[in-house]
């Protein structure tokens, strides 16, 4: 029998993998994709708990998380294109304009 705890454990594992990717990768687009993994693991928790509690609110929250992810994708990728035009790379080690 699959309970809500199974889903939350899976969600915790996916969130950890996303954290690991964000901390260790250098390519900005891959970091962005790891953030998407983390957002999706939270969505899975929302839907599993919404089903467990018997309430629709969690699934509406997932809807808004998806909206924010879409807005983030549009703005973040535009920022990356602008950065690539200036520096010819997407390596996070080159993101040092504010360093002194």
């Amino acid at each position, binding site marked *: 029998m699959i309970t809500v705890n199974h889903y939350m454990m899976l969600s915790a594992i996916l969130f950890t993998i996303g954290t690991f990717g964000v901390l260790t990768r250098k390519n900005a687009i891959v970091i962005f994709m790891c953030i998407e993994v983390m957002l999706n693991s939270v969505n899975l928790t929302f839907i599993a708990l919404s089903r467990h509690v018997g309430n629709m609110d969690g699934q509406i929250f997932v809807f808004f998380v998806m909206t924010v*992810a879409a807005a983030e994708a549009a703005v973040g990728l535009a920022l990356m294109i602008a950065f690539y035009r200036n520096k010819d790379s997407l390596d996070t080690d080159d993101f040092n304009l504010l360093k002194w």
Partner: protein
Amino acid sequence: MEAILFYLTATVAIFSAFFVTQCRNPINSALNLITTFLCLAVFYVMLEAPFMAAIQIMVYAGAIMVLIIFVIMLLNLGLAVKTRYTHGLAGGGVLAALVLMVTTHFVGTGTATGTGGEITSEVIATYGHTELIGKAMFVDFLLPFEIASILLLVAIVGAVILSKRKV
């Protein structure tokens, strides 16, 4: 049967999410990420949320991933991959292990409370999941819905301004 499907899909989801973080080429990472999204859509169907599964495939695996792959191909990042593509593996690994320990401890020792809401399997079977979502969204969550549409408009304008060559 349900358990077999769950463990099979969970294994695929975890491995593809891991390969997102480990693939050297960003395109391979993106394809693995699509696999993860499809596995999550399977979970949504198992959780009796078929509308969310459809939205997951259309919005995430469709729209957002097309945008990401478009940018990867536009910038030709396959050639820009350097010899060293990770950093801080030890620190990141330790921190991620710590996060995993804390979360699994909380999930493993606690139990989820608060069952018995009005949305049961029978209600979903009677009305349909899409109708229930629509009712919740356009009655209880109308103002957040409108705010989300403004957010999307602002994001469109911001993306156009940021990627213009000359302002």
